[in-house]
């Protein structure tokens, strides 16, 4: 119920935050706190020092241009869902609106979701489907990590201990038809299967298919087999069920006390098919 003792610093700049991270290897970045604090209260996490990054102006950026959408790491879900980004990337705002409840959405941040790397995070599917780039700062400078390399293991990212996430870049344009469908865990509300799907249909042909799945698998994944089965094929000739089936095989699934491996795979498959059907019908 009560975290172990810790220090707290509110950083004003990225440099200041990085300094703390460098000085204390047990320090951790604090964003919305909605994943970190519950773990600290259960004493499953016991950082010695929290660096609050939510007041760093740079981390609250929201920018749109013809070739990129930039979302600062500390942008809160609620801010994002009401922003004009819905016009260019409805997928992102649709997904964000399905995260938890208003309280969580008013605290939780895009960067926190990325860095926490919960395998059922809704945004994971969006990051993977859009080939987002994670812009990371460290004393060694700035580097960009592609989404495909970001998720290393459940709750583990490619971020080094002294690095912090500054912003996420979504290359533009993305396919025009976009959707995020979620089958929520009835207890937690997290995704048991969340599917980010995008495609274009040009002269009856399916193009630029992007499908990513979160929640169902041990790790969020891109369903490339499904994408390959569909891309460049005439809409009239494809069977979405077959594609979804193939796509579901790209994931690895684990059983827990309530949700078997088979069930999770089935959900991934069903939700992918439904997302594709929805996009095709638009």
């Amino acid at each position, binding site marked *: *119920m009560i975290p172990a003792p810790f220090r707290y610093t509110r950083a004003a700049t990225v440099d200041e935050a990085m300094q703390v991270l460098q000085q204390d290897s047990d320090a951790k970045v604090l964003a919305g706190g909605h994943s970190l604090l519950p773990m600290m209260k259960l004493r499953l996490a016991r950082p010695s020092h929290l660096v609050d990054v939510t007041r760093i102006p740079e981390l609250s950026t929201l920018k749109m241009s013809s070739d990129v959408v930039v979302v600062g790491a500390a942008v809160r879900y609620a801010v994002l869902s009401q922003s004009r980004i819905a016009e260019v990337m409805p997928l992102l705002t649709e997904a964000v609106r399905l995260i938890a409840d208003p309280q969580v959405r008013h605290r939780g941040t895009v960067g926190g979701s990325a860095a926490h790397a919960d395998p059922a995070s809704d945004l994971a599917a969006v990051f993977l489907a859009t080939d987002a780039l994670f812009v990371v700062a460290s004393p060694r400078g700035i580097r960009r990590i592609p989404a495909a390399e970001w998720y290393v293991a459940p709750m583990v990212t490619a971020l080094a201990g002294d690095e912090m996430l500054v912003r996420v870049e979504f290359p533009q344009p993305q396919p025009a038809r976009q959707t995020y469908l979620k089958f929520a865990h*009835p*207890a*937690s509300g997290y995704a048991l299967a969340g599917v980010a799907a995008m495609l274009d249909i040009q002269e009856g042909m399916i193009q630029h298919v992007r499908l990513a799945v979160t929640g169902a698998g041990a790790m969020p994944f891109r369903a490339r087999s499904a994408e390959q089965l569909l891309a460049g094929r005439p809409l009239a000739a494809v069977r979405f069920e077959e594609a979804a089936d193939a796509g579901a095989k790209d994931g690895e699934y684990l059983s827990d006390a*309530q949700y078997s491996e088979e069930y999770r795979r089935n959900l991934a498959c069903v939700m992918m098919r439904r997302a594709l059907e929805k996009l095709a019908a638009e």
Partner: protein
Amino acid sequence: MTQPVVGSRALRKEDVRLVSGRGQYTDDIQIPGMLFAVMLRSPHAHARIVHVDTSDALRMPGVVKIYTGQDLKAVLPPVPTAWIPPDSDLKMVEHPVLAYERVRYVGDGVAMVVADSREAAEDALEAIRVEYEPLPAVYDQRQAIGEDAPQLHEDAPNNVALHWTVGTETEDTFRTAEVVVRQSFRQQRLIPNPMEPRSAAAHYNPATGEMTVWVTSQNPHIHRVLMSGLLGIPEHKLRIVSTDVGGGFGSKIACYPDEVLVAVAARDLDRPVKWTESRSEHFLATTHGRDHVDEVELAGTKDGRVLAVRVKAYANMGAYLSTAGPGVPTILFGLIVNGAYDIPQASSDVYGIFTNTTPVDAYRGAGRPEATYLIERIMDSYAAAIGMDPVELRRKNLIRKDQFPYTNPFGLSYDSGDYHAALDRGLAMLDYEGIRREQAALRSQGKYIGVGFSTYVEMCGLGPSQVAGAVGFQGGLWESAMVRVHPGGKVTVFTGASPHGQGEETTFAQIVSGRLGIPLEDIEVVHGDTHRIAMGWGTYGSRTTAVGGGALALAAERVIAKAKAIAAHMLEIPDEAVQFDDGRFHPEGRDDRTVTFAEVALQAYLAWNLPSGVEPGLEASAFYDPTNFTYPFGTHIAVVSVDTETGEVRLLRYIAVDDCGPAINPMIVEGQIHGGIVQGVGQALYEGALYDEDAQLVTGSFLDYTMPKARFFPEIELDHTVTPSPHNPLGVKGVGETGTIASTPAVVNAVMDALAPLGIGDLSMPLTPPKVWAAIQAAKNLKGGQAS
């Protein structure tokens, strides 16, 4: 007053305080110098305690004292149970306040740290080193009575806590019946989760010897009885306060070790001490509900007449006997397994079994949901077996209006009812034929919807006391009320019932307002404080309005009788000639001369001119013992759809026609029914504690344990029939538990109805998406296999 106040939808008086954050819950108690306690709980389901080393923890900053089981076993008696069903061979095993030799479930208390702050106490908790020697553990009750099962208590061989049988002879009927249906039902274990976790705060005054304990209790006077014995503090020196309690659902009936420990520390350290459980602790260390396996048999004719029903029940008691635990699977369950049906023969054979799990006690409905579930489910199976419509079958077997009072095979006397009227009303709301047509049309498109019924009755309004004694409840079941009129004509009402969210500060004020003819705002209802209320038995078993309200009506009548005598004297007319209405006394048939209730009250206290023989003052109390239980009933109907691809069940419609007699406040009644239904549907579709091989709870938080949520529900469609109970002066029947009792089987019956064409006969609760999906897959494979 134009609108009668009894029967009106008056807004809840208590809500001003509760929804504006001004309630005073136990955890809100702040006393200068207060210390905080936290409990070290066993991480093992079963282990020998080899050694507890508190030396490091004691050196931590802010730590005042650490108590262990070894320290306390000589000075504190074990926690008792308060329900000893007769002829049940109940094994009253020792339940120490802190385990000293063996821990028997994950969450069993091992030590208590008392410190300056909660933070310091939690830090110190981590520094206590306990050496355990793990023992094999068992969480399933049928395994626990099997061969080679780990044994929990030396004086309970084979882990049998009790064995109790009741009912009529049934053997001949089963041997000769045309149809016998057998089915085994699993009542999964539920975790109550009221919004407010448990909490206790204690303050001891060594100068007066007075101990005050604020505690989250549904029955502070029962707490006083039990804690007085445990602490050795006489009742007149022991004050229990439970004024604002944020829900209980049965989990705050029990007297737990924690609250006793807090009081022990407060006395020992001469400092106030407070403890509040975390939600994680609640999952482990607050009593759970249900957890039965019920083997049921029904005997009937081919044309749908039920002849006999019998059940063999295996009830999980958990590791120790909780306060009311033994009464739940016996008295509250076994006596009503015939449900609302006229079944000539019935019997119950109940085993209560110890396992390495959290103790089980009452949970909303307590025993009656289990009974209702088995009869309502097996009625559907019987209907299927003889090819009869489930509604027709119910209609044929429901107790008829002209059979009341109806004596069931266990000797219970059902008070009053028109069960068929409630069924007909529900069917009309549903459009039964329309739904069946829609169902057939959808099935041809490969879509599955189902409709399920539950025509329930429950016994509640727990009382009278004679029955309490006969069934082994170690207390009375009457209730007290006192109506105190102040000189200015305003009223304070004291009740021995202990509402904790149900709204009786409003409904009780309505009862008094209706009788005394004074406005609701002039009436204050006091409850939950043993120093302000002489005695009472609390709130559970849907008894508060039937029994506590009955007491209140009597007390109010006594006040009126005295006020009438004073008014007659003031009006200079004989007592019999006084008429009292709308808060005014006047000569019968005339209202040119009147005295108001407030004028009479003032006269009663001035006492300048009272009739001879009348004492000053205006207050009256009543100790009311009802003549019998009450039996609310009704028809609940669920319509569901099943997504065969995901296994997800959706509630499309929910119809409830309930009869709880005349409603004092229909809005509050509806609120109780809504909440009850949601909780019952929670059992049907969502909730369920799961343990792993080592008897570790795997559903230990809201991440894994599914509470029902508002978004899972359609608008609930309600209606009522009104059949007064002859068993109490208000004619009311309990309504706090009906929703929970009725809804679980209605929803499961609906899901089974939806899945029937796939050949799926039964599924155990909760009907979660993966379970339903797996059943559909298995059925498909089976069909596929047969086809090839």
